Protein backbone atom coordinates (compact mmCIF):
# COMPACT_ATOMS: atom_id res chain seq x y z
CA UNK A 1 0.00 0.00 0.00
CA UNK A 2 1.43 3.28 -1.05
CA UNK A 3 1.19 6.68 0.58
CA UNK A 4 -1.36 8.12 -1.90
CA UNK A 5 -3.75 5.19 -1.56
CA UNK A 6 -3.55 5.10 2.24
CA UNK A 7 -4.05 8.85 2.64
CA UNK A 8 -7.00 8.88 0.24
CA UNK A 9 -8.63 5.98 2.10
CA UNK A 10 -7.99 7.79 5.40
CA UNK A 11 -9.57 10.94 3.96
CA UNK A 12 -12.68 8.93 3.03
CA UNK A 13 -12.95 7.41 6.51
CA UNK A 14 -12.33 10.67 8.36
CA UNK A 15 -14.93 12.52 6.31
CA UNK A 16 -17.45 9.76 7.02
CA UNK A 17 -17.05 10.44 10.77
CA UNK A 18 -19.65 12.54 12.57
CA UNK A 19 -17.87 15.87 12.16
CA UNK A 20 -21.09 17.72 11.49
CA UNK A 21 -19.66 19.76 8.59
CA UNK A 22 -22.22 21.23 6.24
CA UNK A 23 -22.23 19.23 2.99
CA UNK A 24 -19.88 16.66 4.45
CA UNK A 25 -20.83 13.95 1.94
CA UNK A 26 -19.86 16.30 -0.86
CA UNK A 27 -16.56 17.14 0.83
CA UNK A 28 -15.79 13.44 1.09
CA UNK A 29 -16.43 12.70 -2.57
CA UNK A 30 -14.81 15.92 -3.81
CA UNK A 31 -11.66 15.53 -1.70
CA UNK A 32 -11.08 11.97 -2.82
CA UNK A 33 -11.69 12.90 -6.48
CA UNK A 34 -8.98 15.59 -6.19
CA UNK A 35 -6.57 12.96 -4.83
CA UNK A 36 -7.42 10.39 -7.52
CA UNK A 37 -6.96 12.96 -10.29
CA UNK A 38 -3.74 14.36 -8.81
CA UNK A 39 -2.06 10.99 -8.36
CA UNK A 40 -3.32 9.72 -11.72
CA UNK A 41 -1.68 12.75 -13.31
CA UNK A 42 1.58 12.96 -11.42
CA UNK A 43 2.30 9.49 -10.07
CA UNK A 44 0.01 6.79 -11.38
CA UNK A 45 2.53 4.15 -10.28
CA UNK A 46 1.79 5.01 -6.63
CA UNK A 47 -1.95 4.74 -7.14
CA UNK A 48 -2.58 1.92 -9.60
CA UNK A 49 -6.01 1.49 -11.26
CA UNK A 50 -6.86 -1.36 -8.89
CA UNK A 51 -6.36 0.98 -5.91
CA UNK A 52 -8.71 3.52 -7.54
CA UNK A 53 -11.27 0.74 -8.01
CA UNK A 54 -11.04 -0.34 -4.37
CA UNK A 55 -11.19 3.27 -3.13
CA UNK A 56 -14.31 3.75 -5.22
CA UNK A 57 -15.92 0.66 -3.70
CA UNK A 58 -15.07 1.94 -0.21
CA UNK A 59 -16.54 5.36 -1.08
CA UNK A 60 -19.74 3.77 -2.43
CA UNK A 61 -20.14 1.65 0.70
CA UNK A 62 -19.47 4.61 3.01
CA UNK A 63 -21.77 6.95 1.11
CA UNK A 64 -24.61 4.40 0.74
CA UNK A 65 -24.55 5.17 -2.97
CA UNK A 66 -25.57 2.56 -5.54
CA UNK A 67 -22.54 0.28 -5.90
CA UNK A 68 -20.24 1.12 -8.78
CA UNK A 69 -21.27 4.72 -9.41
CA UNK A 70 -18.30 6.34 -7.71
CA UNK A 71 -16.02 3.55 -8.93
CA UNK A 72 -16.94 4.33 -12.53
CA UNK A 73 -16.61 8.10 -12.15
CA UNK A 74 -13.21 7.86 -10.47
CA UNK A 75 -11.81 5.30 -12.91
CA UNK A 76 -12.81 7.56 -15.82
CA UNK A 77 -11.28 10.62 -14.10
CA UNK A 78 -8.13 8.61 -13.45
CA UNK A 79 -8.06 7.35 -17.06
CA UNK A 80 -8.32 10.92 -18.37
CA UNK A 81 -5.56 12.08 -16.01
CA UNK A 82 -3.31 9.27 -17.27
CA UNK A 83 -4.09 10.08 -20.88
CA UNK A 84 -3.41 13.81 -20.43
CA UNK A 85 -0.30 13.08 -18.41
CA UNK A 86 2.27 13.78 -21.12
CA UNK A 87 0.82 17.14 -22.09
CA UNK A 88 -0.57 18.46 -18.82
CA UNK A 89 2.32 17.82 -16.45
CA UNK A 90 4.51 20.08 -18.58
CA UNK A 91 1.97 22.91 -18.49
CA UNK A 92 1.44 25.34 -15.65
CA UNK A 93 -0.74 24.79 -12.62
CA UNK A 94 -3.58 26.94 -13.95
CA UNK A 95 -4.09 24.74 -17.00
CA UNK A 96 -4.04 21.59 -14.89
CA UNK A 97 -6.73 23.19 -12.76
CA UNK A 98 -8.82 24.02 -15.83
CA UNK A 99 -8.56 20.40 -16.92
CA UNK A 100 -9.64 19.35 -13.44
CA UNK A 101 -12.67 21.68 -13.62
CA UNK A 102 -13.87 19.69 -16.64
CA UNK A 103 -13.17 16.38 -14.87
CA UNK A 104 -14.95 17.45 -11.65
CA UNK A 105 -18.04 18.67 -13.50
CA UNK A 106 -18.07 15.50 -15.60
CA UNK A 107 -17.66 13.22 -12.58
CA UNK A 108 -20.43 14.95 -10.59
CA UNK A 109 -22.74 14.88 -13.62
CA UNK A 110 -22.03 11.20 -14.22
CA UNK A 111 -22.68 10.32 -10.57
CA UNK A 112 -25.89 12.35 -10.57
CA UNK A 113 -27.13 10.81 -13.83
CA UNK A 114 -26.25 7.24 -12.83
CA UNK A 115 -27.80 7.56 -9.37
CA UNK A 116 -30.95 9.14 -10.83
CA UNK A 117 -31.21 6.40 -13.42
CA UNK A 118 -30.66 3.60 -10.90
CA UNK A 119 -33.26 4.99 -8.49
CA UNK A 120 -35.76 5.85 -11.24
CA UNK A 121 -36.23 9.40 -10.03
CA UNK A 122 -35.00 12.88 -10.81
CA UNK A 123 -32.60 13.73 -7.98
CA UNK A 124 -31.96 17.36 -7.02
CA UNK A 125 -29.12 18.73 -9.15
CA UNK A 126 -28.01 21.19 -6.46
CA UNK A 127 -26.23 18.39 -4.58
CA UNK A 128 -24.19 17.48 -7.68
CA UNK A 129 -23.35 21.13 -8.38
CA UNK A 130 -22.19 21.59 -4.80
CA UNK A 131 -19.99 18.51 -5.12
CA UNK A 132 -18.38 19.81 -8.32
CA UNK A 133 -17.95 23.28 -6.80
CA UNK A 134 -16.25 21.94 -3.69
CA UNK A 135 -13.94 19.76 -5.78
CA UNK A 136 -12.95 22.70 -7.99
CA UNK A 137 -12.33 24.97 -5.02
CA UNK A 138 -10.51 22.31 -3.01
CA UNK A 139 -8.15 21.17 -5.76
CA UNK A 140 -5.63 24.05 -5.56
CA UNK A 141 -5.39 23.68 -1.77
CA UNK A 142 -4.98 19.92 -1.89
CA UNK A 143 -2.59 20.16 -4.83
CA UNK A 144 -0.21 22.34 -2.79
CA UNK A 145 -0.09 19.77 -0.01
CA UNK A 146 0.06 16.80 -2.33
CA UNK A 147 2.83 18.37 -4.44
CA UNK A 148 4.90 18.65 -1.27
CA UNK A 149 4.18 15.02 -0.49
CA UNK A 150 4.83 14.04 -4.09
CA UNK A 151 8.31 15.55 -3.87
CA UNK A 152 9.14 14.10 -0.47
CA UNK A 153 7.32 11.31 1.34
CA UNK A 154 5.59 9.79 -1.63
CA UNK A 155 8.77 9.82 -3.65
CA UNK A 156 10.51 6.49 -3.16
CA UNK A 157 13.91 8.03 -3.92
CA UNK A 158 13.56 10.53 -1.10
CA UNK A 159 11.73 8.31 1.36
Amino acid at each position, binding site marked *: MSFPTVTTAALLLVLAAPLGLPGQAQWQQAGALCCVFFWGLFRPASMPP*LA*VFLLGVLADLLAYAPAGVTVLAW*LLAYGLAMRWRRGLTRLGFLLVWFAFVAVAVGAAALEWAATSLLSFQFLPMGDALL*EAGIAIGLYPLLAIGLTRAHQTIADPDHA
Partner: protein
Amino acid sequence: MIRLSIPFRQALSKLTLPVLIAGAFGLLLLGKADTVVMQRARMALADVLAPVYGLLSEPLSSVRRGVDDVRHLFTLYEDNSRLRQENERLRQWQAVAQALDVENAALKANLHWIPDPAPSYVTAHVVADAGGIYARAVLLSTGPGTAVAKGQVALDDRGLVGRVTELGARSARVMLITDISSRVPVVLESSRAHAVLVGNNGARPRLMFWPEGSPPVEGERVTTSAEANAFPAGLPVGVVHYTSGKVAELVPYAQLDRLEMVRLFDYGMRGVLAPEAGITKPGGEVKK
Protein backbone atom coordinates in the same frame (compact mmCIF):
# COMPACT_ATOMS: atom_id res chain seq x y z
CA MET B 1 6.03 -15.45 -9.86
CA ILE B 2 5.45 -16.12 -13.53
CA ARG B 3 7.97 -14.32 -15.72
CA LEU B 4 6.34 -12.40 -18.51
CA SER B 5 8.01 -10.72 -21.47
CA ILE B 6 8.17 -6.91 -21.30
CA PRO B 7 5.82 -6.21 -24.28
CA PHE B 8 3.29 -8.65 -22.82
CA ARG B 9 3.49 -6.98 -19.44
CA GLN B 10 3.04 -3.55 -21.05
CA ALA B 11 0.00 -4.77 -22.96
CA LEU B 12 -1.38 -6.24 -19.74
CA SER B 13 -0.93 -2.97 -17.82
CA LYS B 14 -2.70 -1.09 -20.63
CA LEU B 15 -5.60 -3.49 -20.30
CA THR B 16 -6.07 -3.06 -16.54
CA LEU B 17 -8.00 0.21 -16.71
CA PRO B 18 -10.54 -0.89 -19.36
CA VAL B 19 -11.06 -4.17 -17.51
CA LEU B 20 -11.65 -2.33 -14.24
CA ILE B 21 -14.07 0.09 -15.94
CA ALA B 22 -15.96 -2.94 -17.22
CA GLY B 23 -15.81 -4.23 -13.64
CA ALA B 24 -17.43 -0.99 -12.44
CA PHE B 25 -20.29 -1.52 -14.89
CA GLY B 26 -20.56 -5.08 -13.61
CA LEU B 27 -20.79 -3.74 -10.06
CA LEU B 28 -23.55 -1.34 -11.12
CA LEU B 29 -25.53 -4.25 -12.56
CA LEU B 30 -24.84 -6.51 -9.57
CA GLY B 31 -25.91 -3.77 -7.16
CA LYS B 32 -29.16 -3.34 -9.05
CA ALA B 33 -29.85 -7.05 -9.55
CA ASP B 34 -29.03 -8.16 -6.03
CA THR B 35 -29.61 -5.40 -3.51
CA VAL B 36 -29.13 -7.76 -0.57
CA VAL B 37 -25.45 -8.43 -1.26
CA MET B 38 -24.56 -4.74 -1.36
CA GLN B 39 -26.69 -4.02 1.66
CA ARG B 40 -24.90 -6.73 3.64
CA ALA B 41 -21.50 -5.37 2.60
CA ARG B 42 -22.58 -1.86 3.58
CA MET B 43 -23.93 -2.87 6.96
CA ALA B 44 -20.87 -5.07 7.66
CA LEU B 45 -18.70 -1.98 7.14
CA ALA B 46 -21.12 0.08 9.23
CA ASP B 47 -20.89 -2.51 12.02
CA VAL B 48 -17.12 -2.06 12.10
CA LEU B 49 -17.25 1.72 11.95
CA ALA B 50 -20.26 2.43 14.19
CA PRO B 51 -18.46 1.74 17.52
CA VAL B 52 -15.43 3.79 16.40
CA TYR B 53 -17.59 6.71 15.28
CA GLY B 54 -19.60 6.27 18.47
CA LEU B 55 -16.46 6.86 20.52
CA LEU B 56 -15.55 9.83 18.33
CA SER B 57 -18.97 11.41 18.44
CA GLU B 58 -18.76 12.06 22.20
CA PRO B 59 -15.83 14.50 22.12
CA LEU B 60 -17.00 15.93 18.80
CA SER B 61 -20.44 16.76 20.10
CA SER B 62 -19.00 18.27 23.28
CA VAL B 63 -16.84 20.51 21.10
CA ARG B 64 -19.96 21.51 19.17
CA ARG B 65 -21.81 22.17 22.40
CA GLY B 66 -18.91 24.31 23.63
CA VAL B 67 -19.05 26.40 20.45
CA ASP B 68 -22.81 26.76 20.88
CA ASP B 69 -22.34 27.85 24.49
CA VAL B 70 -19.94 30.59 23.45
CA ARG B 71 -22.37 31.75 20.76
CA HIS B 72 -25.23 31.77 23.24
CA LEU B 73 -23.25 34.06 25.53
CA PHE B 74 -23.63 36.82 22.95
CA THR B 75 -27.40 36.40 22.66
CA LEU B 76 -28.00 35.97 26.37
CA TYR B 77 -30.13 39.08 26.78
CA GLU B 78 -32.45 38.42 23.82
CA ASP B 79 -32.68 34.72 24.68
CA ASN B 80 -33.70 35.58 28.20
CA SER B 81 -36.53 37.93 27.25
CA ARG B 82 -37.74 35.53 24.55
CA LEU B 83 -37.73 32.64 27.03
CA ARG B 84 -39.62 34.69 29.61
CA GLN B 85 -42.38 35.38 27.08
CA GLU B 86 -42.40 31.76 25.96
CA ASN B 87 -42.58 30.59 29.57
CA GLU B 88 -45.59 32.82 30.17
CA ARG B 89 -47.33 31.38 27.13
CA LEU B 90 -46.45 27.81 28.07
CA ARG B 91 -47.77 28.29 31.60
CA GLN B 92 -51.16 29.14 30.11
CA TRP B 93 -50.98 26.08 27.90
CA GLN B 94 -50.00 23.94 30.87
CA ALA B 95 -53.17 24.98 32.65
CA VAL B 96 -55.22 24.15 29.54
CA ALA B 97 -53.45 20.80 29.14
CA GLN B 98 -54.03 19.82 32.77
CA ALA B 99 -57.72 20.66 32.51
CA LEU B 100 -58.02 18.70 29.27
CA ASP B 101 -56.12 15.80 30.75
CA VAL B 102 -58.56 15.52 33.63
CA GLU B 103 -61.53 15.87 31.29
CA ASN B 104 -60.08 13.28 28.91
CA ALA B 105 -59.54 10.80 31.75
CA ALA B 106 -63.11 11.32 32.95
CA LEU B 107 -64.54 10.83 29.45
CA LYS B 108 -62.46 7.73 28.86
CA ALA B 109 -63.60 6.30 32.19
CA ASN B 110 -67.24 6.91 31.22
CA LEU B 111 -66.79 5.33 27.80
CA HIS B 112 -64.95 2.23 29.09
CA TRP B 113 -62.15 3.18 26.72
CA ILE B 114 -59.67 0.41 25.84
CA PRO B 115 -56.26 2.05 26.19
CA ASP B 116 -53.64 1.55 23.50
CA PRO B 117 -50.85 -0.71 24.70
CA ALA B 118 -47.76 1.29 25.63
CA PRO B 119 -45.21 0.65 22.87
CA SER B 120 -41.81 -0.69 23.83
CA TYR B 121 -38.81 1.30 22.76
CA VAL B 122 -35.04 1.39 22.82
CA THR B 123 -32.86 4.48 22.74
CA ALA B 124 -29.84 4.58 20.46
CA HIS B 125 -27.00 6.99 19.76
CA VAL B 126 -26.77 8.57 16.32
CA VAL B 127 -23.15 7.99 15.42
CA ALA B 128 -22.88 9.28 11.86
CA ASP B 129 -24.63 10.68 8.88
CA ALA B 130 -25.45 7.78 6.56
CA GLY B 131 -27.05 9.58 3.67
CA GLY B 132 -24.25 10.33 1.26
CA ILE B 133 -24.96 12.92 -1.39
CA TYR B 134 -28.31 11.71 -2.67
CA ALA B 135 -30.07 10.41 0.44
CA ARG B 136 -30.88 11.59 3.94
CA ALA B 137 -30.27 8.99 6.63
CA VAL B 138 -28.42 8.47 9.90
CA LEU B 139 -26.47 5.57 11.33
CA LEU B 140 -27.30 4.35 14.83
CA SER B 141 -25.07 2.35 17.10
CA THR B 142 -27.39 -0.28 18.59
CA GLY B 143 -25.14 -2.76 20.30
CA PRO B 144 -25.49 -6.52 19.96
CA GLY B 145 -28.64 -8.11 21.31
CA THR B 146 -30.76 -4.98 21.05
CA ALA B 147 -34.25 -5.61 19.77
CA VAL B 148 -34.21 -3.51 16.62
CA ALA B 149 -36.19 -4.44 13.53
CA LYS B 150 -36.76 -3.02 10.11
CA GLY B 151 -39.73 -0.70 9.93
CA GLN B 152 -39.42 0.52 13.51
CA VAL B 153 -40.31 4.16 13.98
CA ALA B 154 -37.62 6.59 15.11
CA LEU B 155 -38.50 9.68 17.14
CA ASP B 156 -36.35 12.27 18.83
CA ASP B 157 -37.56 14.25 21.85
CA ARG B 158 -39.71 16.48 19.64
CA GLY B 159 -41.16 14.47 16.79
CA LEU B 160 -40.92 11.94 14.00
CA VAL B 161 -37.45 11.28 12.61
CA GLY B 162 -37.92 8.37 10.21
CA ARG B 163 -37.90 4.62 9.97
CA VAL B 164 -35.30 1.87 10.28
CA THR B 165 -34.47 0.71 6.76
CA GLU B 166 -31.28 -1.32 7.15
CA LEU B 167 -29.98 -3.47 9.95
CA GLY B 168 -26.53 -4.65 10.88
CA ALA B 169 -25.38 -6.62 13.90
CA ARG B 170 -24.33 -3.52 15.84
CA SER B 171 -25.81 -0.74 13.76
CA ALA B 172 -29.00 0.37 12.10
CA ARG B 173 -29.71 2.88 9.39
CA VAL B 174 -32.68 5.20 9.72
CA MET B 175 -34.09 6.86 6.62
CA LEU B 176 -35.16 10.39 7.56
CA ILE B 177 -38.52 11.90 6.60
CA THR B 178 -36.60 14.39 4.45
CA ASP B 179 -35.14 11.65 2.21
CA ILE B 180 -36.25 11.81 -1.40
CA SER B 181 -37.63 8.26 -1.17
CA SER B 182 -39.58 8.92 2.03
CA ARG B 183 -43.39 8.95 1.92
CA VAL B 184 -45.28 9.37 5.18
CA PRO B 185 -49.09 9.29 5.42
CA VAL B 186 -50.11 12.25 7.59
CA VAL B 187 -53.18 13.98 8.99
CA LEU B 188 -53.66 17.76 8.95
CA GLU B 189 -54.77 18.38 12.49
CA SER B 190 -57.39 21.14 12.13
CA SER B 191 -59.26 19.70 9.12
CA ARG B 192 -58.47 16.01 9.89
CA ALA B 193 -57.73 15.68 6.16
CA HIS B 194 -55.24 13.07 5.03
CA ALA B 195 -52.17 13.98 3.01
CA VAL B 196 -48.80 12.52 2.10
CA LEU B 197 -45.51 13.94 3.28
CA VAL B 198 -43.00 13.64 0.44
CA GLY B 199 -39.28 14.01 1.12
CA ASN B 200 -37.17 16.02 -1.31
CA ASN B 201 -33.66 15.75 0.23
CA GLY B 202 -34.06 19.32 1.47
CA ALA B 203 -34.66 20.44 5.04
CA ARG B 204 -38.42 20.76 4.52
CA PRO B 205 -40.43 17.93 2.99
CA ARG B 206 -43.51 18.75 0.94
CA LEU B 207 -47.15 18.06 1.65
CA MET B 208 -49.06 16.54 -1.24
CA PHE B 209 -52.30 14.79 -2.17
CA TRP B 210 -54.66 16.44 0.30
CA PRO B 211 -58.37 16.23 -0.55
CA GLU B 212 -59.83 19.06 -2.56
CA GLY B 213 -61.34 21.75 -0.40
CA SER B 214 -59.18 21.20 2.68
CA PRO B 215 -55.74 22.57 1.89
CA PRO B 216 -53.14 22.72 4.66
CA VAL B 217 -53.30 25.93 6.70
CA GLU B 218 -50.16 27.89 7.56
CA GLY B 219 -48.98 26.94 11.04
CA GLU B 220 -51.24 23.88 11.27
CA ARG B 221 -49.95 20.87 13.21
CA VAL B 222 -49.33 17.71 11.22
CA THR B 223 -49.34 14.23 12.74
CA THR B 224 -48.89 10.74 11.34
CA SER B 225 -51.83 8.72 10.09
CA ALA B 226 -52.24 4.99 10.55
CA GLU B 227 -53.06 4.57 6.88
CA ALA B 228 -51.03 1.88 5.08
CA ASN B 229 -50.20 0.45 8.49
CA ALA B 230 -46.69 1.90 8.45
CA PHE B 231 -46.98 4.40 11.32
CA PRO B 232 -49.28 4.62 14.32
CA ALA B 233 -51.70 7.54 14.26
CA GLY B 234 -50.94 10.76 16.07
CA LEU B 235 -47.16 11.02 16.22
CA PRO B 236 -46.15 14.68 15.95
CA VAL B 237 -44.40 15.42 12.65
CA GLY B 238 -44.26 19.19 12.22
CA VAL B 239 -46.11 22.35 11.24
CA VAL B 240 -47.27 23.54 7.83
CA HIS B 241 -45.38 26.37 6.20
CA TYR B 242 -46.03 27.90 2.79
CA THR B 243 -43.09 29.02 0.67
CA SER B 244 -43.19 32.28 -1.25
CA GLY B 245 -44.13 30.16 -4.28
CA LYS B 246 -47.28 28.89 -2.48
CA VAL B 247 -45.91 25.38 -2.01
CA ALA B 248 -47.08 23.64 1.16
CA GLU B 249 -44.03 22.47 3.08
CA LEU B 250 -43.57 21.04 6.50
CA VAL B 251 -41.18 22.31 9.16
CA PRO B 252 -40.33 19.12 11.06
CA TYR B 253 -40.47 19.18 14.85
CA ALA B 254 -37.49 16.84 15.04
CA GLN B 255 -34.08 18.46 14.88
CA LEU B 256 -33.00 16.43 11.89
CA ASP B 257 -29.75 18.30 11.31
CA ARG B 258 -28.48 17.75 14.82
CA LEU B 259 -29.72 14.35 15.92
CA GLU B 260 -27.80 12.89 18.82
CA MET B 261 -30.15 10.28 20.21
CA VAL B 262 -33.32 8.70 18.90
CA ARG B 263 -35.89 6.37 20.37
CA LEU B 264 -36.88 3.39 18.24
CA PHE B 265 -40.46 2.38 18.90
CA ASP B 266 -41.86 -0.99 18.08
CA TYR B 267 -45.50 -0.48 17.17
CA GLY B 268 -45.63 -3.83 15.40
CA MET B 269 -46.38 -2.03 12.13
CA ARG B 270 -45.40 -4.19 9.20
CA GLY B 271 -47.83 -2.79 6.65
CA VAL B 272 -45.16 -1.38 4.41
CA LEU B 273 -41.78 -3.06 4.52
CA ALA B 274 -38.79 -0.81 4.78
CA PRO B 275 -36.94 -0.19 1.53
CA GLU B 276 -34.02 -2.52 1.12
CA ALA B 277 -31.28 -0.22 -0.14
CA GLY B 278 -30.22 3.35 0.45
CA ILE B 279 -31.94 4.60 -2.64
CA THR B 280 -34.87 2.59 -3.88
CA LYS B 281 -37.82 3.17 -6.05
CA PRO B 282 -40.55 4.83 -3.99
CA GLY B 283 -43.44 2.53 -3.46
CA GLY B 284 -41.56 -0.19 -5.32
CA GLU B 285 -41.73 -3.87 -4.64
CA VAL B 286 -39.33 -4.69 -1.85
CA LYS B 287 -37.68 -8.02 -1.36
CA LYS B 288 -37.50 -9.38 2.12
